[in-house]
């Protein structure tokens, strides 16, 4: 009891002593309070029939009806599956491509070439998905697109790509790798650069070839980083990239079967269908499963790689 009082007093006196410092942190604290902590109570509307004019305190409570509605619809399985499936594709192909690029770049000793190719590979990372949707359109447009023009040269009839459900997981994966692999390769390359040079020198004395060095030294020593980054992505597997999917697919309902993810579904319920309570229920489902996954993967990471865990 006494201890507690002293602590409270200690904080007050600390504020008095470092008043200016506390003043400097105040704007950030206020912002975090409003857009962080104060948003938490709104999660309760998942259990309400939320009415904008009545607000969170006066809307009708309806228990788990919003969840029921979502899980009874056939959409629940589709969007959950799509979110996880697409993310898995992104993680696997993104990691493999980035890894391959970084290993190759590490072998090439012409610094200027490495530098230039690196800056070119990074370029897609800085472009918004909306601009990329125009790029995609240039390729896959029905009557003017490059892909159909190529098909035409081989005598194959043009395809209306924007109604081809089955093609889109592949297209999205390619675009995702195209945008992000250059960036990930830079991280991996930084890890390779951090490997102790004496290991390579010793290997060289023992007569190892470049290929052997790569497979026996570089790859094993990179594995912790690769595993940690992949596990972190697996932890976030319930969260899809809304920016990507919405920019590339938009409201194209014919593609929903393979491209609709939890995030786009929530967005539609909230902004287009105008049912914030159902949107919140789905969002809560996503958060709870997501939360478990983040902590689960983090615990795994911490167990196997002592300093790899995020928190």
């Amino acid at each position, binding site marked *: 009891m006494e201890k507690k009082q002293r602590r409270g007093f200690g*904080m007050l006196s*600390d504020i008095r002593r*470092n008043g*200016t*410092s*506390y003043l*400097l*942190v105040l*704007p*950030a*604290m206020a912002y*975090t309070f*409003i*857009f*962080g902590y104060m*948003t938490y109570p*709104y*999660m309760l*509307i998942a259990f309400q029939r939320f009415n904008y004019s009545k607000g969170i305190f006066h809307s009708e409570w309806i228990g788990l009806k919003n969840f029921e509605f979502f899980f009874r619809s056939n959409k629940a399985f589709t969007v959950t599956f799509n979110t996880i499936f697409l993310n898995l594709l992104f993680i696997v192909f993104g990691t493999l491509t980035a890894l391959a690029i970084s290993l*190759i770049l590490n*072998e*090439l000793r012409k610094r200027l070439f490495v530098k230039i*190719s690196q*800056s*070119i590979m*990074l*370029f897609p990372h*800085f*472009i*918004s998905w*909306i*601009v990329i*949707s*125009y*790029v995609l359109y*240039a*390729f896959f*447009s029905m009557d*003017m697109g*490059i892909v*159909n*023009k190529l098909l035409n040269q081989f005598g194959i009839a043009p395809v209306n790509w924007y109604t081809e459900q089955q093609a889109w997981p592949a297209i999205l994966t390619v675009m995702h790798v*195209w945008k992000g692999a*250059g*960036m990930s390769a*830079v*991280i991996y390359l*930084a890890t390779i650069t951090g490997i102790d040079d004496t290991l390579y020198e010793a290997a060289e004395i023992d007569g190892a070839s*470049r*290929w052997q060095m790569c497979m026996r030294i570089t790859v094993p020593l990179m594995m912790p980083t690769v595993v940690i*980054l992949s596990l972190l992505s697996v932890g976030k597997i319930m969260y899809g990239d*809304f920016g990507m999917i919405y920019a590339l697919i*938009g409201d194209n309902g014919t593609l929903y079967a393979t491209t609709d993810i939890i995030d786009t579904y*929530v967005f539609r319920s909230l*902004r287009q269908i105008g049912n*914030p309570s159902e*949107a919140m229920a789905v*969002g809560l489902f996503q*958060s709870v499963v997501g939360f478990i996954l983040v902590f689960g993967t983090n615990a795994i990471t911490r167990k196997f790689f002592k300093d790899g865990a995020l*928190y």
Partner: protein
Amino acid sequence: MKTFSISKTVMYALITIYSALSLLPMLLVLMISVTDEDAILKNGYSLFPEKFSLYAYKLIFTGGSQVMRSYGISIIVTIIGTMLAILITSMAGYTLANKNVKYRNLLSLYFFITMIFSAGIVPWYLMNRSLGLTNNILALIIPSLLFSPFNLFLVRNFMNGVPDSLRESATIDGASDITIAFRIYLPLCKPVLATIALFYGLDYWNNWWNAIMLIDSKDLYPLQFMLLQMQSEISMLNEMTMLAGSSDITLPSESVKMATAVVTIGPIIFLYPYLQKYFVKGLVIGSVKG
């Protein structure tokens, strides 16, 4: 030795091809934007323009076009937003790195909690609505981007590296915390401030989330969102003309569409050398060690 050089050649070739593929799609968009409209309609999109024309750019840059207005909005939002965000972040970073502040770790935790646990988009939207952050320019600046805990920790970690003796001697000379923060710490922390400036700036420039959630009025569309709307309106109009069989609705021409996409990435290309340098640093710090 011969097989060795063959594998090297293959590796050079692979990297060259991958680099080319990184750039080629953007080049295609650029080429379509400078192709004559009739040539596009006749031959489809092509990397090699049959007939060169700057018509699209002339149309965009003549006064009063939607593109120019959205450009203005995006520039204003990016500049004001980035400056405010840097100010708030660096001030808070100073306090969290100030070893005289006894409860700095508690403060860090306060920021950290919101970083790992977010309520999601629905509460975020309802909060903005109740604050009146809809359909005004503040709705593009304040929500979601004004301040990010991740950048705060980046600044704090950098400032932790500034020797404490500097603060002590300044205090002995009679300097206040404000003076120390703004006259001593901030100038020393230029590298990390440049890093977060680029993070924030790029976030603001490429952001359309705030617009899609909170903005209805065309006058306030930022460039990215205008681009998104243009694409979806075209596909809608296409469907409508197909259904009605009439073609009296004029669609924005192909070259204008692509030219708009090109001018949207304009500032990024301009900033590219700096972007790359700082992003590589920031990313390596940020992603390997949270």
